[in-house]
């Protein structure tokens, strides 16, 4: 039994997803968005890539991968797990914001986690990359650590 679940989506589909890391024991769900995918008709390659990512992301915890209407499936999973809070990592996609609003309207508490920033930026971006780069180059080129631990050389596919 738990009070929170983690909702994973296609913009943050990793075992290092910030919402997952903040909730090491919480059950997690990923939903193949049926209405969206039925209309978009993406290639199988993309969906299989997502499936492989999702499998690794939920490994080692109670996890569920589903196909359906995202908000309904997340609500159903929360109810099954007797959770009232949904933890999720923020995305800039309009569809994501809409789903968050629908989950809140359905009475769930949605806790948003921010993905680690590449550079800090406030306000509107300029219209051209060159103007953006001039303003962020120094920060972008300043490492914040040494990056993830990489697998050993002999560890190949």
């Amino acid at each position, binding site marked *: 039994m738990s009070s929170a679940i983690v909702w994973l989506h296609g913009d943050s589909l990793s075992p290092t997803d910030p919402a997952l890391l903040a909730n090491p024991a919480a059950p997690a769900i990923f939903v193949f968005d049926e209405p969206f995918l039925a209309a978009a008709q993406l290639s199988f390659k*993309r*969906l299989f890539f997502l499936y492989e990512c999702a499998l690794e992301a939920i490994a080692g915890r109670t996890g569920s991968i589903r196909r359906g209407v995202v908000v309904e499936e997340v609500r159903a999973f929360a109810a099954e797990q007797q959770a009232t809070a949904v933890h999720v990592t923020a995305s800039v996609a*309009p569809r994501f914001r809409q789903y968050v609003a629908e989950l809140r309207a359905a009475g769930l508490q949605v806790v948003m986690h921010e993905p680690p920033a590449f550079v800090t930026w406030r306000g509107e971006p300029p219209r051209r990359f060159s103007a953006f780069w001039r303003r962020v180059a120094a920060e972008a080129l300043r490492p914040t650590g040494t990056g993830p631990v990489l697998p050993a050389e002999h560890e190949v596919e």
Partner: protein
Amino acid sequence: MAATWPVLPQLVVYSKETLNDEPTMQLRTDVTTRAEQVAYLAGALDGLYAGPAIPSPIRGGRRAALRRLRAFDARGYARTRNDVAKRGVSVLSPYLRHGVLTLAEVRDSILSRFGHTPDTEKFVNELAWRAFWQLVYAQLGDRIQHDLEPAKHRSRAPRRQLPPEVAAASTGLVCIDESLRELYTTGYMHNHARMWVAAYLQHWLGVDWREGAELFYRHLLDGDPASNSLSWQWVGSTFSHKPYIFNRHNVERFSDGAFCARCPLAAGGCPFDDSYENLAQRLFGVSLAELEGRR
């Protein structure tokens, strides 16, 4: 492409705790080999994809992402990144797009392993393109699917829909067909090839950028509303100050001559075989200086 995926049994598990009466489809998470997973998912997601149920050679997941990151040698990147034959690029885009790796951790890893050099600075500059498109998307949302600015110049090619030869990778132009074939079979295309194909479709064929963007989006493992649609607009000049064009010399130089060596049109009839000055006149009816906004 031919839709020849095998018919597989649907493996549906019904869950009783759903809020409504609709059956929930839970996907299995215990299928072990990749081949079995492919066969399983082909049935489980039936109706939600187009084309054959063949996976990309590029594997999903964090482990594969870290292997790819380790394998990428940033030395020489600035010199080889534009070369579609030499492939000095990382192929990390599918992982970055889906948050399996973050821009920050890739930057940190590359700078700590290869130091600050012109190569690593160029690489970080490319990472920043993704960050930039994401900021534009955060600001504008679905408006990025419409022209953000008036086109600076419009191609004189009559407007037409995406021709079937493009969907079949059989335009007869080896540089274009090979790039499309790679997209359709692996879900990846080199950045320079994306620029060629996007320019060819818009400026030579007169296809609306949205149709091209949709084609790319359906196939790219890294297909991203922001990076994809805004790059198409960048090529078309509705989000840049001039349309991007290329010529045969550029293709030969950045493909080791390999495409043209095999192309039946190399001896005559290549639509790209011209100077930039002539292409500006032919495609847009203006001088190169006007096309580039210098006059």
